[in-house]
């Protein structure tokens, strides 16, 4: 059963997630939903990086006695950085949305552009 799946399935899942995130960001009118889309979008990239780090039979990248084969540690470091960046972006975006709501009493992007 498992052999019927394409070998690069994890990457295709990442691409699907990326498209879902982008679609949400562009089509949805609610400002909060756009931020959710942004988070799905960036999570898809983290998933992509993490899944490429995996290698068959690799141990977690912490030095241990008698283990030679580890998964690639570099993408893990990149993803940690990426997550922190996404945290900073999301927090700032949420604060902006709170203030926008207080000023205009709406979160609908179409109504906001008319103002």
């Amino acid at each position: 059963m498992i052999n019927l799946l394409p070998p690069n399935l994890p990457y295709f899942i990442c691409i699907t997630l990326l498209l879902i995130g982008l679609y949400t960001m562009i089509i949805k009118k609610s400002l909060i939903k756009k931020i959710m889309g942004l988070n799905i979008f960036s999570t898809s990239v983290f998933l992509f990086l993490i899944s490429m780090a995996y290698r068959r039979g690799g141990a977690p990248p912490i030095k241990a006695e008698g283990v030679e084969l580890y998964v690639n540690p570099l993408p893990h470091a990149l993803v940690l950085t990426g997550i922190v960046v996404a945290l900073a972006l999301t927090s700032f975006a949420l604060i902006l949305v709170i203030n926008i709501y207080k000023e205009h009493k709406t979160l609908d992007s179409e109504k906001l552009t008319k103002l």
Partner: protein
Amino acid sequence: MNISQHFPILVIITLFTGAYLAPLAGLWKRKLCYPLAVLSALLSFLFSVVILLSVLEHGIIRYHVGGWEPPWGIELLVDPLSAFMALIVSFIGLLAVVYSKDYIAGEIPDKKLPAYYSLLQLIIGGMLGALMTGDLFNLFVMTEIFSISAYALVSIAQKKGSLIASYNYLILASVGTTFILFSTGFIYMVTGSLNMVDISQRLSALESPWVMYNGLILLVIGFAIKSALFPLHTWLPDAHSIAPSPVSVLLSALVIKVGAYSIIRSVFTVFGPGLLEQSGVVTIPVTWMASLGILLGSIYAITQTDIKRMLAYSSVAHIGYILLGIGLASTASMTGGIFHILNHALGKACLFFCAGAVLHKTGIRNVEEYTGLAGKMPITMIAFTLAAISLVGIPPTSGFMSKFYLAIGAYQESWIFLAVILLGSLLSAVFYFRVINLIYFGEPEHKSGVREQGAEIGGVVHRQPTTDNRREAPLTMLIPIIILALGSTLFGILVHIPLSVVEPAVKLLLGM
């Protein structure tokens, strides 16, 4: 061991340290933030002068951060192009910091000053970091630093609509940065490396081009959003016009240029001169989009009545010139494009500073009300005229020289691009000369009523019109204006000075 060896990193770390210190200084004495910011910007400007001189003398500087050699650690790579850009960025950044003192006092509350100066240093430091780095992931991190600071600076004055402008900028630009990260992933996947030079060597040995194309396309889309290439420019007019004027200067004169620089880096360094024919996948669309941007940006600018919006749309057109030069990828066009980075930075910074000075002194934003300002603020208006002439591209100024090179490059490729450049210059002449005409020859009439209305456009009544008419802006605002206006004129006559940097940079990029 010589201390000047460390300047490529110190130029960045100085600004970051200043940014870390600003909130701390704000707890103690808010007045301290400004001198600290000026000091760190001045230091990094001096460092970048030294870097440029030593690059021209000794060639490319490579700095291995942490002592780890390139593919394993992060390498700073300073070639003539990045040193040239770093000098522009740190110089105009310094001027913007100096200019902020009097201007910002009327725009934002005292309580926000530490945050403002901190973000100002972060945005300059982030840009310098993005210019100096030789590592793809580090480029992403630095891009993110100056982007987040830019989003925050757009909304810092909390005028009407600034929050929404900042939000739209954030959403669109973070799509860009995420694309950059995704493409970094793709490139890392097939090369196993993050160092730009290493990547370019390993990419040329690759059999299947699709991953490479994909990485290149995503990278260029990401940076095209950052640099407001035509169909992706929608965030720019709002963000650039609503931000406080020193921030408009940084955004319009520098941030989009760093985006353009990153496109150059990704096409010519990451993908290397060896793959230049294959990078037509991106350079041809970029060229056409840039041409469209030149025309449509200028046409939009003609229809604007708000001076800062007009300047912002003009930036869309000018980034078009720069990317057109880069996209054509011939020696003349590249020289023109990179030289135009300098000219547009000087000219547009000067125009935004002038618009800011007028806004600060009189509260006028509307172009129609510039009538007769020449009598009240003569120095500012002369500077405005010089910078506008340079951006239109009239002979004695430096803007002419870069457009001349661009035109040669365009003519070699196709007459269409030449026509685009000429038509774009003509269109920009229309809206700049309209303003200049109003300044010098406009009839000053129905003043007070319209002026109140004009002050209302920004959402806050900026400042009551002063009774005495002949008043220039304070000295901290006037000096940057004068320097920039002189710069954009003198480099047209002393054209060999910038060209002595641009030409080796172009040769290096094209692998000649």
